[in-house]
């Protein structure tokens, strides 16, 4: 224990400061008793109350996602339950990952189209939300908070129109906009 606190200078000019050897560390037992006290306290606290336990037993109990977590896409619905999307191609244009595929078809209404195919490849999606911002008619949203499901094969991660619509609800926005939308101050 002699010279335990003496500083030395090594060949490379580095000052070597030995670890301070206190009596309680050198004799092991007081230090050990202290450590045992800590672990014992945790043991009895957790047995009695379990309040320190940090683990979340996953399938039974899920950690809450952050408020701004987006999750899977969904396609919103009109009053009659059909899709709000008018296949304007804004979202595939805005998408930086090119994960949205839309094939448009005629509706019979000369004013608008609708998607025959609307596919989102969830494996390519970077969850940036630009498609939602680009959408002019509140058709696509990323607010489900549902985590992307694990799949066995790649193509199962490509979500189709029915799948996306199954999570959809009716939007309070009016399809095509209100007549005097410029006068409306509050946009829902």
């Amino acid at each position, binding site marked *: 224990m002699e010279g335990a606190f003496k500083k030395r200078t090594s060949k490379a000019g580095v000052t070597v400061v030995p670890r301070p050897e206190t009596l309680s560390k050198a004799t092991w037992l007081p230090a050990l008793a202290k450590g045992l006290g800590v672990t014992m306290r945790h043991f009895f606290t957790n047995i009695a109350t379990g309040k320190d336990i940090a*683990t979340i*037993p996953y399938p039974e109990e899920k950690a809450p996602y952050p408020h701004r977590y987006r999750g899977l896409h969904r396609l919103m619905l009109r009053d009659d339950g059909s899709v709000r999307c008018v296949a304007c191609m804004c979202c595939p244009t805005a998408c930086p990952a090119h994960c949205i595929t839309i094939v448009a078809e005629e509706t019979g209404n000369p004013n608008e189209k609708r998607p025959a195919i609307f596919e989102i490849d969830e494996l390519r999606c970077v969850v940036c939300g630009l498609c939602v911002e680009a959408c002019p008619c509140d058709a696509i949203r990323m607010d489900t908070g549902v985590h992307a499901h694990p799949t066995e094969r790649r193509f199962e991660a490509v979500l189709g129109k029915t799948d996306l619509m199954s999570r959809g609800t009716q939007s309070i926005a009016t399809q095509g906009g209100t007549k005097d939308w410029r006068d409306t101050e509050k946009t829902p």
Partner: protein
Amino acid sequence: MGLILLFLIPTMAFAGMAVALVGILGAAIPWIASHPWGAWAMDPWFQALIKLALLVLLVVMPIASLLTWMERKQSAMMQDRIGPNRAGILGWRGWGIPHFVADAVKMIMKEDFVPAKANRFLFTLAPLMAIIPVFVTFAIVPFGATVCPHQLLQVVNETTVNSCKDAIPLQTARIDVGLIFYFAIASLAVYGTTLAGWASYNKWSLLGGLRASSQMMSYEVTMGMAILGAFLVFGTLEPNAMVLAQGPNPIDWGIVKQPLGAVLFFTAAMAETKRTPFDLPEGENEVIGYFVEYSGMRFGIFFLAEFIEVVFLSAIMATVFFGGWQVPFLYADGFHLADRVFQMPHVVVLILQTTAWGLKVIIGCWFQLLVRWTMPRFRPDQLMNLGWKRLLPISLANILITAFVVLAIQAWGAH
């Protein structure tokens, strides 16, 4: 709630165990022997066999296999985790207790692998050399007082116990060399680890085996020296006589008379079990260990042997330093509390004593697990320094001082 269960469940379990032990040894066997066709039941060899079988099947194996679960659960509780809780029997998860069954099934189902260049005979022999000595040492552990089968329901006192007919000691082998026998057999266990390390034909396992042999041999010296103080104080080597010498008053127990010896012995014996502050032979991140080539149930035997050593260390600590099967203030005729005697029949006293022994053992196991999950592993040079430069001189000093004190008490007649 959890704390109540923590104390209640082991107590209930050991009370049941004690009822079974005392019932079979103190009532069933004398009942068989009382018939003309059952005279063989009093044969000492038969009784020794039955006692060892009961001790192993009712106490040692259940505790050792539950320790595999307890170690994981306790470490989880100490580290603010949940620990094993998934395996279940028909949906009953019971805090993860069925995990030890799952482990056993897994180990039995796994491939039994022998390396191509390994020495097949020694490779097979090594796990047996590790586990058999541990079982054999249990022969000297007294797990209860002497049973007087004809006075089970009466209140007896020490003199009737000592002189009663057909007495059955609750100890497999009452041999005078006692603890010397333990040291002799326990040092055989080093062959298991060393052979395992050498026979696997693997550099890492060889390193592990070498570490194991050097460590176990070094600490055996301290272990023997540390317990010599207790020999001097109690004047005997026979474990049951040591328990009787300690008596039911905790002030006379070994931990009070030999506190330093108890700490030294516990440390050295923990090094013998090769568990965490001293787990250099298997240091997972360095050499993986002497059983790196072992798989399936062969590994399982090493694993189990380690836990049985833990149980045995608790049993021997309880016997030598914590009054063995003695319950505080419980004499053969009942509790003696401040000049008042609460009399109890012989069988109740026996069951209480065996329950107390079981509780002392499980608390010892618990404490070892606590140490194992608190301390980090030593470096080999620290280990040798601790063993030879610290523990050995201190234990020698302990012997000298104890000897002088014992001599002084004998010479000047303090009692």
